């Protein structure tokens, strides 16, 4: 059981790493057509000494960048809200089955005939298995939630910096 648990932990770490690699190759879906709105932005004044053509290119670049960041924020927000209920569900199940395991084990120690002792032994073993499986699923989902939460926070900060440049 512990071997399975550690294998899943390693696999979840691999998934996190794979997601990072995939993100580095993240490409924008479409281009931004209008730049007139950005012309009204205060940041536009930074480029007053360059030509009009260069302004448009710069603003287009910033818009594209912001759009890309927004897509990443949406992606990680979605991941966050998927992983959180999974974590809550399976961690609750793990705690529930942990309680059931303890009750079954206490009853096992009170049995004074073979058949009932065997029954409670089987019950304890089953509840332990359910508890471990729930914990094993909840840990990667917790890791995934933390990663998503952190990534979303980083990109939000990046977007905020871009808008206030």
């Amino acid at each position, binding site marked *: 059981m512990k071997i399975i648990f550690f294998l899943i932990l390693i696999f979840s770490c691999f998934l996190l790493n794979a997601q990072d690699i995939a993100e580095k190759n993240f490409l924008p879906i479409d281009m931004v057509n209008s730049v007139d709105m950005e012309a009204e932005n205060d940041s536009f004044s930074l480029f007053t000494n360059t030509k009009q053509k260069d302004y448009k290119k710069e603003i287009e670049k910033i818009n594209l960048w912001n759009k890309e960041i927004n897509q990443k924020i949406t992606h990680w927000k979605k991941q966050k809200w998927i992983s959180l209920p999974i974590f809550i569900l399976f961690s609750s199940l793990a705690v529930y089955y942990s309680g059931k395991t303890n009750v079954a*084990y206490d009853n096992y120690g009170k*049995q004074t005939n073979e058949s009932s002792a065997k029954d409670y032994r089987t019950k304890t073993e089953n509840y*332990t298995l359910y508890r471990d499986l729930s914990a094993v699923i909840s840990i990667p989902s917790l890791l995934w939630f933390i990663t998503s939460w952190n990534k979303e926070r980083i990109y939000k900060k990046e977007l905020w910096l871009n808008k206030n440049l």
Partner: protein
Amino acid sequence: MAKQKFISLFLLIFFLLLSCDTKVFDNPFDANSTFWNLNLTKQTSNTITLTWEDKVEGESGYKLYRKDTIINDMEISNKTLSVYQKISPNVVSFTDTFTTQKKLYYRLYAYDENENLSVRFAENNISLTK
């Protein structure tokens, strides 16, 4: 961010500990349980103290068998070997006196309200030769 890390670490450790907790099955009435130990200590020239662990909560008591040769399962099931001493429930030690200088074999069973013996028993022997 520090608070976030602390909560995450706490939850991770909690679930790691939760999944690593294993139960030991040691009820003598369960045939698949672990072995039950009986410790023998020679106290004086003619007394031995027997100690064991109280593995069951609802037992009616313990039955102790003693013999100067190896005790067989058949002797117990056929009742050809009589009970040497009945011990009250939840007691975990017994002091025995001896006059012989031979080897003594002991077996301890727990029993229920219907006088059924536990499947597992605690067994040990002691050499009393000088």
